[in-house]
């Protein structure tokens, strides 16, 4: 019984973190997810404006660029295969590497937990809307990344970095809107700091802990105690700190190498669930399509389903948030439009392929209907468990790895935002990284509702300045992309193998 006081103390620490954090989270959520009540359709139906903002942008650019994301597909694959890379540029960042880095930051819990949340709250029909959101999100992502490369910053020492802060300030200055550009860039950076500690950190730490706790025996297991969240968070924070503060980059490289394998394993696990339940697949597909348009709740339900699908898709593929533009900008190319082409593959891989796989597994096994626990990774885990008993264990490892690599990516996005706001200095660098590590502990100790609310809010806020900038620079993007495609079609730009002289 010697440990009892310590446990009580630690348990109260977890609760204190939670009780301190929940009101802040609730307040921000109420602002960001300000929703118009649509009582004339059905009672209780609400339309969050932020989701409208993201989806309208996706549809606008899809129409404005005449379905660019679908026409970009073939050329994007040629680009990542290096068909257009000048041999003299060997040794620089390739299109493949820029895409892979961006994808490893994006693929993660949004694909596993986010999909489960969408389906648990919105029903199987939410899947279809997620796919639609993914398809239009491909276009938004292409637009962001074209601008990201066009207006990227080359530091005095030769390092290359870009992202919305640079295209908002530089791109809008070119159009005579310098002040607006600066204001939007600063806002974007502030929201990125919030998004980095929220969705990019606390949400990840929280779900990683919840998954570790669940596979080790739940509340009765070794991680079931009150202090477990804080201790798990501390260990995770040390691992994050070892890389971002300690500079042990080899850990990051090992993780990043494991992530693609884990992603492949994850898709294989989903396929196993599908194959084992092959006869149920048509029915699940029908449920996804039919319930997207006519859920049991009637017309009001459609809006609810649609919102869940769109919201989770945006959280998963980050299209319109601007985060990926930071990761894509380091690519070696003279043509910004090339990375715009390659970037459309990111939401495709993330949402159209991986999220759909998760959705099918969850819908087929029906685990989304189990409301005994909060929807999240467990929902997906339970779906896997119905087929192979040890899958949840591997899934737990995958979740922790995904969470870890996403955290490292977001610590970088946050750092770029912090140095944009406060200048390049060791003090800014270390302060940001230290704060980031502290939030790992808070995230692992906090209840999911508080964390998920805050994470969503801050991440979605990034879309406000970013998408406003995208609209204002839509003409610039169109010229870049159309000009590039024209030269590509006229044969002015040729694959390396066909070039002469």
């Amino acid at each position: 019984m010697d440990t009892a006081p310590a446990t009580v103390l630690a348990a109260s620490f977890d609760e204190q973190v939670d009780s301190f954090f929940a009101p802040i989270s609730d307040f921000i959520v109420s602002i960001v997810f300000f929703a118009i009540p649509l009582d004339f359709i059905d009672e209780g139906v609400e339309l969050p404006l932020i989701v409208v903002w993201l989806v309208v942008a996706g549809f606008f650019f899809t129409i404005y660029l005449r379905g660019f994301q679908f026409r970009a597909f073939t050329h994007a694959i040629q680009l990542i295969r290096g068909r257009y890379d000048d041999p003299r540029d060997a040794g620089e960042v390739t299109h493949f590497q820029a895409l892979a880095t961006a994808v490893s930051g994006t693929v993660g819990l949004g694909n596993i937990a986010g999909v489960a949340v969408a389906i648990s709250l919105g029903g199987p029909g939410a899947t279809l809307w997620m796919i639609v959101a993914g398809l239009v999100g491909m276009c938004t992502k292409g637009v962001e990344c074209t601008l990201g490369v066009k207006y990227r910053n080359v530091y005095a020492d030769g390092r290359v970095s870009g992202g919305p802060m640079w295209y908002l300030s530089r791109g809008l200055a070119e159009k005579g809107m310098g002040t607006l550009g600066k204001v939007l860039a600063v806002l974007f950076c502030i929201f990125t700091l919030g998004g980095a500690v929220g969705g990019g950190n606390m949400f990840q730490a929280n779900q990683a802990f919840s998954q570790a706790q669940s596979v080790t025996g739940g509340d009765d297991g070794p991680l079931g105690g009150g202090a477990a969240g804080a201790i798990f968070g501390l260990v995770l924070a040390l691992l994050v700190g070892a890389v971002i503060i300690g500079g042990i980059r080899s850990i990051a490289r090992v993780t990043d190498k494991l992530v693609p394998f884990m992603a492949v394993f994850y898709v294989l696990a989903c396929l196993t669930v599908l194959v084992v339940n092959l006869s149920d697949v048509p029915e699940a597909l029908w449920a996804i399509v039919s319930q997207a348009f006519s859920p049991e709740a009637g017309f009001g339900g459609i809006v609810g389903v649609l919102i869940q699908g769109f919201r989770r898709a945006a959280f998963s593929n980050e299209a319109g948030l601007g985060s990926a533009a930071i990761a894509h900008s380091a690519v070696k190319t003279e043509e910004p439009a090339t990375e715009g082409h390659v970037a459309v593959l990111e939401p495709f891989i993330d949402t159209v392929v991986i999220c759909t796989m998760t959705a099918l597994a969850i819908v087929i096994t029906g685990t989304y209907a189990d409301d005994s626990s909060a929807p999240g990774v467990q929902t997906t885990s339970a779906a896997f468990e119905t087929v192979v008993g040890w899958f949840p264990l591997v899934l737990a490892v995958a979740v922790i790895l995904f969470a870890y690599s996403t955290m490292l990516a977001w610590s970088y996005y946050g750092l770029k935002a912090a140095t944009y706001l406060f200048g390049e200095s060791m003090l800014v660098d270390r302060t940001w990284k230290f704060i980031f590590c502290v939030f790992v502990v808070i995230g692992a100790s906090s209840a999911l509702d508080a964390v998920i609310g805050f994470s969503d809010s801050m991440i979605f806020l990034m879309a406000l300045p970013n998408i406003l900038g995208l609209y204002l620079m839509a003409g610039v993007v169109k010229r870049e992309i159309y000009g590039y495609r024209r030269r590509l079609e006229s044969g002015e730009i040729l694959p390396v193998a066909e070039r002469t002289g």
Partner: protein
Amino acid sequence: MPVSSSIVVGLDGSEASVRAADAGAEAARRHDLRLVLACVVPWSPYAITTNEDNERRSVDKAREVAAAQERVLDPVVARLSADGDIDVEGVVRHGHPAETLVALAREHDAAWITVGRVGQSRVRTLLFGSTPGSLIQLSSVPVLVVP
């Protein structure tokens, strides 16, 4: 068949690769060919990298090229071109060592490729030890391996 104009030698800083360069120089003198000394920095376009790696990549590449140039190529180029009777050129390129040597041989109309038998892995800019083996499989011109 076009007349060859050069001999490509893979140089990685190892003693064997220096012997290969010497053999190449002698042959270049005898056949009146240009001598192309190539140092390939092992690199893959499909390696998985982090955001920080990508941000610094251009800087790192420039540093790797400079190191290869100074430590591996310059001393040998200076020594072999001292007599002034052969045309010696040093090239640094990133890529798969054997594939890159084959590409360079094509670009320079090489009569053959000469490499040393043993590579050492002390410096980062070295060729892999299995390079001669891969070369034999990939090359469209003869490969001369110097012990």
